[in-house]
């Protein structure tokens, strides 16, 4: 039964809790806003869906075990992407080994130890600005600092360190923010039982912040695997028909390889390009999926 006619209703029911005109208008507005925001979210998802769809449709047929595990042939117009795949994994692994410990430690210092004075504020500002530096500038810095000055030559090490510098702000900011979501009351409780700062951090703060820290690492992984410019001058080779043996070797990398076969290799089939792109994005998504799974497992254990 509806009450819109004002005179209806079952006996004994007044219209006390029926919607007024104002309520109806509010509901309409609320619905409209919701639809608008939902639409924006949809717009956000559409490009992702299209990119993935096109890559799967056009690159999918290229993907085979042979494609993934063989070397490029015929001046890179055919064959597989194995060295690039392995190279990207090296780059991601080595750069995470550098950026995660440094970034997490720096974030812990800034959030848990450092006093709030002008110096830490300048440092925080510098970190935010570091995130805004264009990747090509990082590339030139890496070339100067790691390749030439430190004498690593064009190598996985130099390229990974360049990538690490680039992803450091992401790791630091995400870590610091997740540390700050741990309630102060937990820290106070620890201190008041005589725990040192480090004991507090190790036993209480870090376990509760780990899911946020992983978010930072996920973002760092995605950027590391996808960046081309920073590795171009520092360690990624145009064509390097061997698997790297140590961090001092040059290597091929997925992002770089995609760039090369798309722009510099006449005669490379579209299927090859799309297949490479699809593999790269799948690699990133897989790594993300693992961390996201791990993160939600950790979140599930969190009880506050």
């Amino acid at each position, binding site marked *: 039964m509806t009450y819109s006619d004002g005179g209806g209703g079952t006996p*004994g*029911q*007044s219209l006390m*809790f*029926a*919607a*007024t005109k*104002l*309520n109806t208008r*509010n509901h309409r507005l609320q619905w409209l806003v919701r639809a608008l925001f939902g639409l924006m979210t949809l717009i956000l998802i559409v490009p992702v869906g299209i990119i993935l769809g096109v890559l799967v449709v056009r690159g999918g047929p290229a993907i085979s075990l042979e494609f993934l595990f063989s070397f490029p042939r015929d001046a890179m117009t055919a064959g597989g992407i194995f060295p690039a795949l392995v190279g990207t994994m090296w780059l991601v692994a080595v750069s995470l080994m550098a950026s995660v410990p440094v970034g997490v430690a720096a974030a812990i210092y800034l959030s848990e130890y450092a006093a709030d004075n002008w110096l830490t504020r300048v440092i925080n500002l510098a970190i935010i600005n570091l995130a805004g530096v264009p990747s090509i500038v990082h590339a030139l810095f890496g070339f100067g600092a790691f390749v030439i000055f430190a004498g690593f030559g064009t190598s996985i090490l130099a390229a990974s360190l360049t990538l690490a510098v680039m992803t450091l702000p992401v790791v630091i900011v995400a870590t610091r923010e997740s540390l700050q979501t741990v309630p102060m009351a937990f820290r106070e409780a620890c201190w008041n039982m005589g725990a040192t700062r480090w004991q507090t951090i190790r036993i209480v703060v870090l376990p509760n912040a780990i899911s946020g820290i992983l978010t930072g690492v996920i973002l760092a992984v995605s950027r590391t695997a996808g960046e081309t410019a920073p590795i171009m001058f520092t360690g990624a080779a145009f064509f390097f028909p061997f698997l790297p043996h140590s961090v001092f070797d040059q290597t091929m990398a997925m992002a770089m390889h995609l760039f090369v076969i798309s722009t510099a290799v006449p005669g490379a089939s579209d299927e090859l390009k799309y297949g490479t792109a699809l593999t790269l994005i799948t690699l990133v998504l897989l790594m993300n999926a693992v961390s996201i799974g791990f993160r939600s497992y950790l979140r599930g254990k969190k009880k506050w």
Partner: protein
Amino acid sequence: MVKATPLAIDIHNLSLWYGDFQALFEVDLQVKQGLITALIGPSGCGKSTLLRAVNRINERLGDYVRTTGEIHVLDQDILRNDIELAQLRRHVGMVFQRPNPLPLSVRDNVLFAHRIHRADEKFNRRKEDEIVEHALRRVLLWDEVKDHLGREATGLSLEEQQKLCIARLLPIKPTVILMDEPTSALDPKGTAALEELIWELHGDYTILIVTHNMAQAKRASEETAFMLLGRMVEHGLTEQVFLAPREKETADYIEGRYG
């Protein structure tokens, strides 16, 4: 029981589940208009859940909450689908455990609900001033805050904040005010002041108050309902429940043997 007093809230056979967990078991409760009814019982017995069912604020949790049974507020079945929640919550206000004034000025806090529910009317400064003064006087807060109505409400003392949280309900003329342990964040002086205020409001508003404080239930209510493990054990006049409880569980709880 005096049959003549009309009921403000009539809960019949109410069961409620959070997922698989059943929080309320076939609860019956009649709250008379204009009286203060205290809801007592050990932690986790469903007092707050019952309170939150009355203005359907539980539903913000979505399908996770399942309710069966009937709740009538002023003779109207409020569990029906065509109930306008904005209207229901206007008539059934709520005060929370922790004072939660909005991060606005004292004045804007008092006028918040009023403005939301009267969006059609032109805002009239003089009329708004009257509303603010009237509401703040009613909660015995006017003298403290009249000279700085523009100040942030979050800067008030907890006692003042809690009074403000009651004051902001008054301009929209609620019939029922639900209070979920409204004094547990306050010091003894604040508690006393709030109890005084609750008595002050008694008669004009129906008040259903959840409390862990036995002395408070005894002092500040006319009827008391005792709940245990999601069931309504006993409900009667406060003196009767405290001096001559019908059920053994009630007596045990009141004498502090558990809970």
